[in-house]
Structure formats: structure tokens, C-alpha cells
């Protein structure tokens, strides 16, 4: 069955967006990522203009992350305090990132910087997570607990002002830490034009030392707010949110997010991390191939990256 999309100005088989929503929603509920790094290119592949694809995906993520946050909140896996600090930083970072894009555009090499940032961030994050979670899986297996050693970095972090305890995550940090890293992810996400879940999750796991299950719930919580903001701005300034496409996507993704959250409880933190690492690495490889293989068309629609 085909439906016509009034903003994308194209017709699509309804099973495509519902199926895509289901798959990406599943990942969202499992790993706490929005899935924009998968969804946007897939929508473009099915004939949706790139600007409409990105804007509509953010609308869909509002639904998927609401569904996912709700599922994780029910079992006490959302650290709202941490979420708010990350959001505050992310909001400021986003404003800064948008300015950075303007500067890059003026310099004329925005596309190069964006693509390279994307490849390197995905590559580094994927590789690090893969190696780390593989290591910790082996460690668990041989029942050797690594002695926690106090590094210089840890001492520096402890010395920062505004130390506070995050009850849900069971960690103590300076409030500046989530604000700073939230801001950094915000800048990068704005430059790359993605939600940044795949960056936020490793920041929470490795820098903020939060338990993986709380990471997923908290990440979804802050993605929800980011995507509300982006959906509004995209509708208001660029007019490229396709409501019908968003509804078709969220039919699948809200369901997928619930199934993902349910399934995630049955997996261990290391298992979740290694699967996410493999997906991130696969996307990296795909982007590298896109960059190096000759494209079939040398002209593309304006907008998007």
C-alpha cells in the first residue's frame, strides 16, 4: 500500500517506513541512541529528500525516545539529575556548533570537515568500545577483578568544585563534568547534523562511569528533549518535517523501543556495548565506502550533507 507524503512530495510503500521505524526503534530502546545515523541515510535511499529525511527523523525520535524513556523509567533506569546537567551543556554546545557550521560554510570546506569529523568520531568510538567491552568480557570470564587505580586524571576530576552525588547512577562527580561533556557532544552533534546518542553513550559509560542500563535510559531522556527542540526549529524555519512520514515511522519505532528496552534487560552491559560497537563500526565502514567508491550520480539535491 502506497501513501503520498505531502512535504517530501513523494509516494512511499507504507511498509518501508514502518519497518525502518521498528528496526531503528529496537536499537534505540536497546542502546539509548536515537538512531539518526542509520535512519537518515536509509530514508534518503528510499527517495526522501535529504533535508526532509533529517528533520522528519527528529520528529520520529521524539516518539521513540518517549516510549523508550518511559519503559526505562518504569524500572528505575533514568538518572534525571544527570540528564538535566547533560542537557544544559548540550543546549549551549548546540548553539555553539551551529555558529561553527556558519564559519565552516563561509570558509568553503564545511562538507569535508563534517564528513571527516563523522568518520573519525564513529571510528574512534566504535573501536574503543569494541576493544574495551571485549576486554571486560574476558575479564569476567576469568574472574579476575582489576584493581582500581587512582590516575592523575581521576585526582584532577575529584579536585573540581561543585562535587555532587548522582544517586541513580551511584557515582559522584563535579557538576561541571556532565555540563562540559554534554556541551562537547552538543557541538559535535550540531556540526555532524545528528542527535549524538552514539557519542553520549560512551561519554556516560567511560567518563561519567555510569552503569550501562542507567546510561541507556538517561541517554534516551536527554535525546527526547534535543529532538523536541530540533523538530520545532526545523518546522518553524525550514518547513521540512513530513508529519505523515513521521507517523508511519513512529508506528514502528515506539513499538520497537519497548521491545528493545525489554530485551535489553536480558543482556549484560558488556554485551550491549559490544553490539553497539559493531553497529557503529559497520556504519563507519559504510560511510568510508560512500566516500571512496564512485557515485552513480554526480548531482544531488541541495540541502543535507
Amino acid at each position, binding site marked *: 500500500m502506497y*501513501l503520498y507524503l505531502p512535504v517530501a512530495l513523494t509516494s512511499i510503500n507504507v511498509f518501508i517506513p514502518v519497518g525502518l521505524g521498528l528496526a531503528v526503534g529496537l536499537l534505540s530502546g536497546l542502546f539509548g541512541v536515537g538512531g539518526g545515523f542509520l535512519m537518515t541515510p536509509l530514508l534518503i535511499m528510499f527517495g526522501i529528500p535529504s533535508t526532509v529525511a533529517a528533520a522528519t527523523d527528529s*520528529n520520529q525520535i521524539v516518539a521513540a525516545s518517549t516510549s523508550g524513556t518511559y519503559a526505562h523509567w518504569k524500572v528505575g533506569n533514568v538518572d534525571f539529575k544527570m540528564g538535566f546537567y547533560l542537557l544544559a551543556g548540550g543546549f549551549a554546545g548546540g548553539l555553539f556548533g551551529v555558529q561553527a557550521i556558519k564559519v565552516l560554510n563561509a570558509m568553503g570546506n564545511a562538507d569535508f570537515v563534517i564528513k571527516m569529523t563523522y568518520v573519525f568520531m564513529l571510528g574512534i568510538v566504535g573501536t574503543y568500545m569494541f576493544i574495551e567491552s571485549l576486554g571486560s568480557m574476558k575479564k569476567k570470564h576469568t574472574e579476575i577483578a582489576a584493581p582500581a587505580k587512582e590516575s592523575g586524571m581521576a585526582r584532577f576530576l575529584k579536585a573540581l568544585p561543585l562535587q555532587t552525588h548522582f544517586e541513580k547512577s551511584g557515582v559522584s562527580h563535579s557538576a561541571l563534568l556532565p555540563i562540559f561533556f554534554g556541551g562537547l557532544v552538543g557541538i559535535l552533534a550540531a556540526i555532524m547534523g545528528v542527535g549524538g546518542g552514539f557519542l553520549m553513550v560512551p561519554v556516560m559509560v567511560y567518563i561519567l562511569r555510569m552503569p550501562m542500563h542507567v546510561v541507556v535510559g538517561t541517554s534516551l531522556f536527554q535525546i527526547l528533549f534535543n529532538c523536541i527542540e530540533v523538530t520545532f526549529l526545523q518546522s518553524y524555519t525550514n518547513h521540512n518535517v513530513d508529519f505523515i512520514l513521521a507517523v508511519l515511522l513512529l508506528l514502528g519505532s*515506539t513499538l520497537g523501543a519497548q521491545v528493545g528496552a525489554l530485551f535489553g534487560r536480558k543482556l549484560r552491559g558488556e554485551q550491549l556495548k559490544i553490539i553497539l560497537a559493531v553497529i557503529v563500526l559497520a556504519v563507519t565502514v559504510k560511510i568510508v565506502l560512500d566516500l571512496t567508491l564512485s557515485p552513480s550520480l554526480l548531482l544531488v*539535491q541541495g540541502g543535507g550533507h
Partner: protein
Amino acid sequence: MSVTIVKSGVKRKTLLAFAFVALMLAAAGSTSAELTATANHDHIKIDFFYHGSSVSVRGISDQGTDLVIKIASPEGHQELRKKGKLAGFLWMNVGKLTFEKVPNLYSLHSTKKLEDILSRDEMDRYGLGYSALQKHAEIGPVASGDEKAEWFNQFVRFKESSKLYSVSSGKINITEQGRTQNYYVLLDWPYQALPENYTISVYAIKDKKVVETAETHVLVEQVGMVKSLAGMAKNNGAFYGIISILAALGAGFGVGMVFRRGGGAH
């Protein structure tokens, strides 16, 4: 459906001109049959279940004439990003190209191959064929004529990939009837074609020259909910955005609640 009779090169603009041309024909004592063109529907409505359409064009022409049928949108301006190699191996967007005086949709069908029935001059005069389109188009920025030709070819490939440009020959069905012939062609109308007023022009050809033309129109329009949603997105972005967000929040919570009730056993 409007049927227009026009002598080579003259276009009907008003009833007055129509009468004038008819008078001229009579004065010239022309014995040729009137070329006619009729489309099966002149109004394509885009509703939620629209997935393209098909348009048939039929009419009468002089026996033995070759025919070219052109469907085109009004000429306009299009901006596209071009891909190029950076550092020798990285394919990236390397800038923008502006295409002026090009139709968004261009579909051309002839009884025989265009080059075999028309002279270059005639093709250029009536905008028939890709090479005529290329000569007419303005592309910038390009350094040379060769570069223009190269990017125009890429433009055609881009358009063909979304079914908006096509050129074919041999699809037109002709049945002879005394001194005249009936022609008929059935064409796919792509769903990618934007709402616009399209012109169908039919050219009768003899001795490598266009001897008669006829014209009709197809209006493509959004209707109902598709029209109101597209209008709201464009003219009332803030309200549209808020509705979209509320719907998404509602759907997310709704599914969450359903799962809590249904998932009690987990």
C-alpha cells in the same frame, strides 16, 4: 478538453489569435487535415493514495506525417550540489550548480528516432531532444562549453533516475483512416512530478520540418488533506511543529502505557 489548431510556429494565445490563424489557413487554401491533441484527463489530483498516474494522448493528423509528443513543465531554475573528488580519492559535495531555463519534467516521445525525422535547426527551434534543451539551458558556474555539456549530461541522468526526464521513440500507435491517421500513446505519469500546470505539445513533421502543432494541458494539483498539511507546514510552521511534537509525545506515551498494561507478566 481544449483542442488547438496552430500553423507551424504560431501559438494560440487568445480566441482572437485563434480566429486569425483559422482565417490564415482558409486564405492559404490549405488542404492539410487539422492536427488535434486530446489527453484523457486534464486534472491529476494528488490525494493520500496517489502513486502516479497514466496519461493518454490521442488525436488526428495528416496521413504519412511523423509525430513528436512533448510533455513539459514550465521552465525554471534549479540548484543542485555537485560531487567531485577531493585529495584524489574522496567523493564529496564540492559546490553548487545552478541550472536556469530547464523544465522540471520533460518527456518526449516520437514515432521514429528524433534525429531521423527532424533537422537540427527544427529540434532547436521547438526545444525537442536533450541537445536542444542543453543549448537553451544556462548552467553556472562552468568554465567551458565542454564542461557545460558534461554537467548537462549529469543533469539528465539525475532527472532520469527520478523518472522526470525521458525520451523514447516507437511508442506512438498509429492507425490510418483514409487521408488522415489516428494516433494514440499511453504514458506513465511519475508520482515525482510536482504540482504544476504541464503542457502537452504535439508536432506533426514532414520532410524534416515541423508543419503543424497542437497543444493541451494537464494540471497536477494537491487536494484534500495532502493540500492542507502541505499548506500548514509551509505557512504555519510553528503550529505545525507543535502538533507534530505533541503527536509524537502522545504516541510514545500511549505505546508505553499499553506495554505497561500488556506487559505486566514480564
